[in-house]
């Protein structure tokens, strides 16, 4: 894990008004191979940081001008998905609760122990990567699903319910051969290597589709 940071490695945004703290924590975080982007001014951070990148945010609660909690509120309101770790010099239970309620991933007290901080950061980054990947897969599946014709979606829905080609043909008034053709087409369009994979990736989409189109169909 101590590989030299490159441009693609996750980035930790470190926001603290104190230069010494930024330097010290930056050095510490750097030892586990995470890239550190220090910010002294919360406003500058909010205006300029890379929202698309993978990583996490470390935010001091007590800063001049703007409180860490309101920075957190702004991030959540803007739909920023990078996990936020809050740091505070004198954490009260109340402040801790507010931070978690506002969506903080972790709440740590200064001076912070290296293991607690680094573990929290690694968890946060891992979680972020996973959520980004899941989002990406979901988006791709949705795009492929959109390419299906009306009839292919019907066939897919019945496949997901576990019907055989014959049963599907009977249900839709089609010959088993035609069903077979639709089935081959939709496997190709959805790029599914097996029936199991098809069901795992698309069952949810079919259910959602049924929920919205089903009502109109029976009326």
């Amino acid at each position, binding site marked *: 894990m*101590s590989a030299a940071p490159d441009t693609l490695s996750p980035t930790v945004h470190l926001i603290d008004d*104190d230069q*010494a*703290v930024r*330097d*010290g*924590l930056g*050095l*510490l975080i*750097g*030892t586990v191979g995470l890239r550190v982007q220090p910010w002294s001014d919360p406003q500058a951070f909010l205006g300029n940081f890379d929202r698309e990148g993978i990583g996490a945010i470390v935010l001091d609660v*007590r800063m001049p001008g703007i409180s860490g909690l309101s920075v957190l509120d702004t991030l959540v309101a803007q739909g920023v998905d990078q996990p936020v770790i809050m*740091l505070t*010099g*004198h954490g009260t239970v109340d402040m801790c609760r507010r931070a978690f309620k506002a969506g903080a991933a972790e709440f740590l007290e*200064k*001076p*912070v*122990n*290296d293991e607690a901080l680094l573990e929290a950061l690694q968890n946060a980054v891992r979680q972020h990567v996973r959520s980004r990947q899941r989002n990406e897969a979901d988006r791709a599946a949705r795009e492929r699903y959109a390419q299906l014709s009306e009839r292919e979606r019907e066939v897919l829905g019945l496949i997901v319910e576990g019907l055989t080609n014959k049963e599907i043909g009977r249900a839709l008034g089609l010959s088993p051969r035609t069903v077979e053709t639709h089935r081959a087409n939709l496997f190709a369009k959805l790029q599914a290597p097996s029936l199991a994979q098809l069901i795992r990736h698309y069952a949810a989409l079919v259910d959602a589709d049924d929920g919205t189109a089903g009502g109109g169909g029976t009326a």
Partner: protein
Amino acid sequence: MWQSWQRLKWWVSGGILLSLAGAVLLARLSLDEQRALFETDARIVHRLLSQQVVQHDAMLATLALLQPVPDSSSGASSPEQRLPVLYPQILSVQRRDPEQRWSDPLLTQAETRSRQVRRAALGALDLPAGRYQLVLAATPTSYALTIDARAMVPWSEWPMQADTSPVRVTLEHDGQQYVVQPGAALDDRPSRGWHFAFHKLLAAESQPFDVVATLSVGWGQLPWGLMLIWVLGVTALLATLHHLQRQRSARRRAEELLRLGQVARLNTLGELAAGMAHELNQPLTAVLANTQAAQRLLNEDPPELATARNAMLQAAAQARRAAEVVGRLRQTVERPDRSGQHQPVAAVEAVRRALYLLEPECQRRDVAPVLDAPQAVTLLADPVALDQIVHNLILNALQALEQVPAAQRQLKLTVSAQQRRGEITVADNGPGIPPEVLPRLFEPFFSTRKDGLGLGLSLCESLANGMGGSLDATNAPEGGAVFRLQLPLAEGLP
């Protein structure tokens, strides 16, 4: 100041109003009583005089009925002539025999009137002298009585002291007046005041004299003594109430101030602690981060010596920064020198003040403090600091006593002096101080209470030291904690 004057104004006006109302009521009652007495007396006077004059009618009627005995016409031994002997008010009896005329034409007129109205009629009338004549026409002989009103009054049955009574009684008729009882002389009668009057005709139609009784009561005759006592009583009562109320509100204010002071101190301490935490946590965070980063860098293979060295330099610099923060804090918090404020203070008074302020706390815990001060001890101290120390020590003891059943709680305060030092001790019979706590008792931020800041005793000790004294704590052999505050005695004073 203005507010207290406003409040006082209400008390004063309330007092004046209450005094006036009471005085008026007293005067009214006294006047009513005097009037009732006067009217009763006047009625008795009227009845007594009426009984007398009715007798005259009866005498004349009897004479008229008997008529003179024919052979005693000589007149000397006539029976009617014996009347003046029996009745002192009858001065003389005249008679007009048939075919004769009255010597006095007034008697003739009276007889004519008497004949018309068929009852006795008045003849000559000289009321100022108290004389009048009464004539009854009869056939053949008519009789006349000359009556002395003065002798008519039955003084033995008279309801008043004739010579001293202020009531004036007169008989009035036809513009004439006979003074039965003079009452207060005309000049002495008050022109301002209350005038009571009684008018009633005598109960004899033949002698229709008006009985007039008057009484004047002047301002001077009002029950001033009683009214004065009332006003003084009201004033005393209101003054007492006002004093009590002021005492109560002063005490409430003192308690309030004390509570506010404690809250303010806690707030200040809270702010201080938060600021201190931030100021210290920043460099400490940097120190910790740098040292731990250095450790990791040194553990790498090969170790990144240059970066690690730099991290250690950073850590050292930040440690110095933390030390500077602490130094600055001490300078800020250090108390200014208050030795100029030292003055002679009676130790007993300081203890009493603290006990007075803490009385509600004592009552709440069923603790009756005992103060033992056999001699007057005058300390040289800052009165504010002394009050604060004693207050804290007593409060501490009260809190310790909460762990003892209410019936057994004892709190004893002692004031004494030895050589050149005065001493105040506060002893409770609580659980005492655990031996492991004793050496740390006066350390700042050390507290055995969960919610304690651990500054109370530490502050007391520094205050005592600042006044050239000392504060120490021991456990009494019979149990409980004893705190001993020693301070220098004021020179030249006991």
